[in-house]
């Protein structure tokens, strides 16, 4: 996070000079790793692993021998190079609790909303759809997850404004593919470790290579972000992998939050990975009475809208290797759950109200806890069977309709019955200290029997909604307080978190009876046949009349109409 994405490119020349210290590494490749701990107000702690590799251009020819990098995995980079991908992000996330954590999202800002997501920029060309499909399928195999589109229509192409390119590629197309049904599982950890040069054997990755511990954590997220070499980056590319989770510090029976590396990972500080340029343990301190033993180096920096104290340890330092680092709150015998937890400056939640099996209304609540107005885009991706009613969309503040707050609505409806997606971007102004409610009524289309997925009764997930803040400021490396003059320490705009995600939603679809096809065909056809038969009979048969005999008498005569005519 601190080695935030853009800065890597800006400081790339510096890294390359740094890398000269270690002559055994070929080209300009460099590897950085860090472990960040961030205690949360509710007695839990975020743990974030970050692994970052800087690599040089595989060369203009792109031939395979030249692509064998020393630190970068060919399995990851070759499909990207072969398919002309300039940027790619894959992430799997299992959710986040905005209310308990005082933060609007995960510690890693690039993590998507719930489920899996793959997005990226591809250089333009006629075959861009095929190339995207090839990349998603290749990397899906790498992550043991189906990342490819089930149909071409699943690809979303108008989220380029929400996820702008980090390098200045020209003529590139953005693709996004959401897999809200995907989950993080043990199958995802092994391939993730195999992509790392340290392979989970040494350095910080040794702490991660423990599925029994890692998968007991809550709110997990893993992902990779690859920036392929571009003309502006002097042939330097970068890929970063992260893994995040939330652990409980308070013992089950209550007590203090005292913890340590050993307590969290059941391991001491592992031996360093020889190729790593830096290997850092970082602690973000929220309370003044939090202590760590042994002491690390302290500094202050802007993180997510606040100036926070950061304590760092160099894990390549021989003094800490094989040892332990303890974290505790001075004077805390038993953790008291706080009565109130400061809410994040801006939160967004989504629910379905007015729910019937065939219709509903998305109710999106955006809470602005700041004393100033914010500008943002709220975006949604729906599968084709969710049909929104744009003429009935309302923006409410304090139960009052405020159409003026919705500046612009960009609506790209799906094209049923083809598998496709609806995308929506609401350009909103969120008034200061207010609760903005966005109501979007929708209907669910009736799907064909063959279009239902096998687990139809469970329902189908809708991807997370994204609130993109348009007025954020960069997290400057040095707090303004130290630059003199301004003593600002809190400014929720000064954050790298540009996107806030809602939860996923499980919607059930009105289903037909899957055992019925033959019955329906037979019964409907019977009604049709009955009608046809009766009509045919009425239209083609002769009509005449008979005299119905009164009781006891025989019918006297029976005359045909045509017979009378001839008479």
């Amino acid at each position, binding site marked *: 996070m601190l080695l935030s994405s853009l800065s890597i490119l800006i400081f790339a020349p510096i890294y390359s000079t740094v890398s000269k210290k270690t002559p055994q590494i070929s080209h300009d490749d460099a590897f950085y790793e860090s472990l960040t701990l961030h205690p949360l107000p509710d007695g839990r702690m975020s743990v974030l692993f970050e692994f970052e590799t800087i690599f040089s251009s595989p060369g203009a020819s792109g031939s395979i021998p030249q692509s064998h990098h020393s630190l970068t995995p060919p399995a990851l980079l070759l499909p990207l190079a072969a398919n002309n991908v300039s940027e790619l992000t894959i992430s799997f996330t299992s959710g986040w609790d905005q209310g308990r954590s005082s933060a609007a999202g995960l510690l890693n800002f690039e993590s998507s909303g719930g489920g899996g997501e793959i997005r990226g920029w591809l250089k333009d060309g006629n075959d861009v759809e095929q190339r995207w499909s090839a990349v998603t399928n290749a990397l899906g195999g790498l992550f043991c997850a189906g990342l490819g589109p089930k149909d071409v229509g699943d690809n979303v192409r108008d989220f380029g404004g929400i996820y702008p390119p980090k390098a200045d590629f020209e003529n590139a197309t953005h693709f996004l593919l959401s897999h809200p049904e995907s989950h993080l599982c043990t199958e995802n950890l092994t391939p993730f470790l195999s992509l790392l040069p340290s392979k989970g054997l040494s350095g910080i990755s040794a702490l991660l290579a423990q599925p029994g511990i890692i998968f007991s954590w809550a709110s997990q997220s893993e992902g990779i972000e690859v920036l392929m070499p571009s003309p502006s980056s002097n042939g330097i590319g970068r890929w970063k992998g992260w893994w995040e989770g939330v652990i409980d510090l308070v013992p089950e029976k209550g007590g203090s939050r005292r913890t340590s590396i050993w307590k969290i990972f059941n391991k001491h500080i592992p031996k360093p990975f020889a190729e790593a340029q830096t290997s850092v343990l970082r602690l973000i301190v929220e309370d003044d009475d939090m202590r760590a033993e042994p002491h690390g180096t302290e500094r202050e920096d802007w993180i997510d809208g606040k100036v926070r104290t950061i304590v760092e340890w160099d894990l390549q330092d021989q003094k800490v290797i094989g040892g332990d680092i303890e974290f505790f709150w001075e004077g805390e015998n038993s953790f008291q759950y706080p009565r109130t937890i400061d809410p994040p400056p801006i939160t967004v939640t989504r629910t379905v109200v007015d729910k019937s099996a065939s219709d509903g209304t998305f109710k999106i609540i955006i809470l602005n806890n700041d004393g100033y107005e914010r500008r943002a885009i709220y975006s949604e991706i729906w599968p084709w069977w969710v049909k929104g009613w744009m003429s009935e969309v309302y923006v409410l503040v304090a139960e009052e309709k405020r159409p003026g707050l919705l500046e612009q609505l960009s609506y*790209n409806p799906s094209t049923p*019955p083809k598998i496709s997606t609806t995308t929506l971007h609401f350009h909103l102004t969120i008034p200061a200290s207010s609760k903005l409610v966005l109501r979007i009524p929708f209907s669910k289309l009736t799907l064909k*029997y063959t279009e239902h997925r096998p687990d139809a009764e469970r329902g189908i997930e809708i991807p997370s909604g994204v609130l993109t803040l348009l007025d954020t400021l960069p997290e400057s490396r040095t707090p303004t307080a130290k630059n003199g003059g301004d003593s600002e320490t809190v400014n929720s705009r000064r954050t790298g978190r540009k996107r806030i995600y809602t939860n996923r939603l499980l919607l059930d679809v009105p289903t037909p009876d899957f055992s019925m096809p033959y019955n329906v*065909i037979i019964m409907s056809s019977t009604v049709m046949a009955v009608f046809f038969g009766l*009509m045919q009979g009425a*239209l*083609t048969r002769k009509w005449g009349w008979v005299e119905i005999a009164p009781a006891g008498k025989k019918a006297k005569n029976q005359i045909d109409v045509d017979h009378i005519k001839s008479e």
Partner: protein
Amino acid sequence: MQSNRLRRYATSPQGVLIAATVIRLSLFFGVPSLCHALERRPELSTPLTSFRSLHEGAFIYARGSNPYDGGVFYHSPLYLAYFTYIVPASSYALTAIFWALIDAASALMLVKIWKARSKDRDPRREFLIVTLFMFNPYTLLSCLARSTTNIDNAILLGSIALAAEGQSLGATILLALVSHTAVYPLLLLPPIAMLLNRKTARRPSTSVLRNALIYILINAGFTGLNFLIAGQSWIGQSWGVVVNVTDLTPNVGMWWYFFTEMFDHFRTFFLGVFQLHNLIYVAPVCLRLSDDPLFAIMVQVGIISTWKSYPALGDMALWAGLLGCFPDVVSNLRHPLFTLTVHLYTSILLPLLHSLWLLTGTGNANFFYAATMVYGLNASLAVVDVLGAGLRLQVKRKAAAALLEDELRTHTDQGESGRLDDVWERKGWSVVQFTGSLI
């Protein structure tokens, strides 16, 4: 004295027309929540006729986007333009007044049809026709739901009325218009051309070829207008949906569940079967009922309203309204009570089973399908019954003309059809369908 005049006015066709319109307007403005709830009933409006979709389409169109780009809007571009520029769909008051007036216009057209068909000038009969149409719950509810079915009905009735009066140009223009907005009235071109082909007292006959040519020209004109309004994307999204049945939202028809459950590789074949099933009756009905094209139109309307791809109760209202103009046919029906009670039964069953499946989520699709089967079977049998009644009447007339002229002359106190039925009953005669074929 005063009350007598009032009563006479109230039982006149004009009186009941005004009363029905006032009731509609008072329901629109008195209980708008009811009207909004009715708008969403799948029995009253399909995605192709629902006001909610129309409003959505007009909303998107007004924002400068093409509503036909996504699967949101299936109405004709003519409606899109009309409800954007002339009666804005966003105005509740204007649309409410428009729909109330549309129904009144339909009723007037029915009276015109009756006048053209019968020499009977009894205002009581006109009163009955207007009352039966305006207070038919299907018409009333469909109007309150602001379903565009009612507009289609009014245009079609206008076309039939003008054709019955022998005004070929007006009839053809209206028929072209309604075949643009609802597609299926296209099948009424042959019987309407036959009707125009007949000599009337006021006008000479017009040739079928000429009328067909005018129809094609006017149709091309409307198509050009559509292209002006919405480019070319409207074809697949309005006519295409009617033909291909890509939207499977439940309605009262026989198609939606059939094509929900249909295997993909048979879909095209059965689409062909279902569409041809509508088409196949045109020629036989026109040939068999060539002596009474108006009756052929009525039978054809009945077939379409039962077997079209997206039917609604409003389509049945049109047919029921037309039936009011044929009292002689109605008196020959075999099972009118059965038909009526099953309609009553389905009008309870449809909303009940729909809510079980789609509102509370406790039932499944078979519930609503069962109700639509009952409705479809009943409507089918009713059409057959009407056709049979018409043919029975034909036999009675022929036989009476040949054998019973004297007896009929002695019964001058009743109307024509009543007289005929009366004499037949006393004779103990009964019309039957022989097992032998026509030829």
